[in-house]
């Protein structure tokens, strides 16, 4: 999940659902859960995706003063949740190492990496985009 620079991610597909949030993460979670179930994710993996999106959206509230945008889309193969906000992630190793048990921070992005099948992160002075992918076919063994 090293932030890449100068390589914009491809645009979301046309059927994406968009939601802007300022403070209500419960709405964000409810939307992700609904879309994940509709797309056919198992309940456990739907809840994994809810946790991941909520952790990234929580960073918007912690680190920026502006709203964030959630986009959700899926095709036959995967469901993707994208969070965009005005924050900047400068530490390229963020979320890559497991925080020691009892650490008083650093679990958020680490959890995101644990529960998602693929995480893409781009960040520069204009903002941060995090895309969380969950495969719909070939479900993994529950973790």
């Amino acid at each position, binding site marked *: 999940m090293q932030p890449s620079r100068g390589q914009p991610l491809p645009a979301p597909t046309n059927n994406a659902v968009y939601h802007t949030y300022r*403070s*209500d*993460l*419960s709405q964000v*979670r409810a939307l992700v859960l609904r879309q994940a179930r509709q797309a056919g994710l198992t309940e*456990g993996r739907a*809840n*994994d995706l*809810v*946790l991941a999106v*909520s*952790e990234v959206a*929580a960073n918007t*509230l*912690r680190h920026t003063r502006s709203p964030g945008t959630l986009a959700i889309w899926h095709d036959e193969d995967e469901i993707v949740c994208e969070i965009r906000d005005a924050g900047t992630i400068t530490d390229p190793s963020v979320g890559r190492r*497991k*925080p020691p*048990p*009892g*650490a*008083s*921070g650093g*679990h*958020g992005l*680490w*959890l995101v990496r*644990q*529960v998602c099948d693929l995480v893409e992160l781009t960040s520069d002075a204009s903002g941060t985009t995090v895309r969380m992918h969950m495969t719909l076919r070939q479900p993994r063994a529950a*973790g």
Partner: protein
Amino acid sequence: MDLLTTSVATVESGSEPYTLVELVGEADVTNSDALREVLDAEVAKRPRTLIIDLSGLRFMDSSALHVILRANRAMDRQGGVVALASPREPVAKMLRLTAADQLIPVYASVSDASAG
């Protein structure tokens, strides 16, 4: 309705009373300060055992986890014990992934937790 409601009771059980904090709803970054205040107030009363009932908790994020870990450290320093009771699967999984369940014992029920 509040996203997270907390209720606190002192339970007289057998030899020793314990403090029971029940969390209902969703615990996230938007209410972790309030949760911290509730737990800090109970820790300050220096109970021997503080049991947090998670059975009504639909969601918990890392902010809420950090508040619980903080309470656990404070209790540990003053010779007390924190126990977690009956987390639902999404919360239980989060406790496993962060290895918080290795620091704070997790029990299937409040009565199991109070029996230690």
